[in-house]
């Protein structure tokens, strides 16, 4: 393996990790789970 470490993706990864953590602290996973557990009738072309 040879090359030079590219830092841009690592920095961006850190940024999105921060967004993810903020979402986590705001309790979004509960909302995501609630949503994903139910059938979205609109999404499947009904309603």
């Amino acid at each position, binding site marked *: 393996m040879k*090359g030079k470490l590219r830092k841009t993706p690592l920095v961006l990864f850190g940024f*999105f990790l921060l967004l*993810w953590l903020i979402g986590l602290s705001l309790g979004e996973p509960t909302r995501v789970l609630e*949503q994903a557990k139910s059938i979205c009738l609109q999404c*499947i*072309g*009904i309603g």
Partner: protein
Amino acid sequence: MQTIRKWVQAVWVFLINGFWGFPITGNLYQGPLKVICSPGLNCYSCPASTTYCPIGTLQQLLLSVRFSLETGKYYLGLFVLGTMGMLGVSFGRFICGWACPFGLFQELLYKIPSKKYSIPPSLNLLKYVFFILFVIVLPLVFVDQFGLGKPWFCKYICPAGTLEAGIPMVLLVPDLRSTLGVLYVNKISILIGFVLWSVFASRPFCRTTCPLGAFYAIFNRISLIKLVLDKDACTNCKACHKVCPVEIRFNETQGSGECINCMKCMTDACNFEAIHVSVAGYRLTKAGRKRLIDSQ
């Protein structure tokens, strides 16, 4: 390599659609795994789905932003956007080529013997319009009296949702059949359109319409894992142009947002080892053959 890729794609299909108890329960999976993001486009209303669809869930959070703010909650979609971003920055469109069920479905359709046609490159830009307009702007802007919007992309466009959830749920729950109307006919027509198009052109939905593909495409040039061209080893023989399923010229447009990183150019075309996989800047494969010969 392409056989391995097909197997990886198949494994992903069953990983994110691993609930096969739905014929007995008559309902979709409702366990805790649904807090995990599916890397590819996979409707969470699919009865077998064990994960959430990033595009569907992002729309659901955005369409209810005003409502949630009014009720003292701060559901801004950051959890989903953060997950999508981490996936995009890490893998770029490797996900499209290796882990998307609807991508695999289109690839299988393309194997049906028929005359094949190319897709005009200008149509590739449409998917960015779908992402910005149908996934972000319209769900945020057009809201009802309760402050709730609509999942525009899922509701009016997504053929993956129709295939994976619309048709199976209607078959599974007879009560739903009486509620079918114009919306369902519209979605079925779009699905049929893409099925037919996929027989004659390679991955038309991924290239022209998929909002998740558009999001990952933004990161293709800078993603942690990506395909890289060794310019010193490239002889410009154009062999990579001929095998590309999304019709890009890899040696001329390296890092193109259209590349789904299927590696066909690397393993099935290039005789000079000029294309390699790079992880965070470190190449995983050996140096180009031409350069080695030149240096001797």
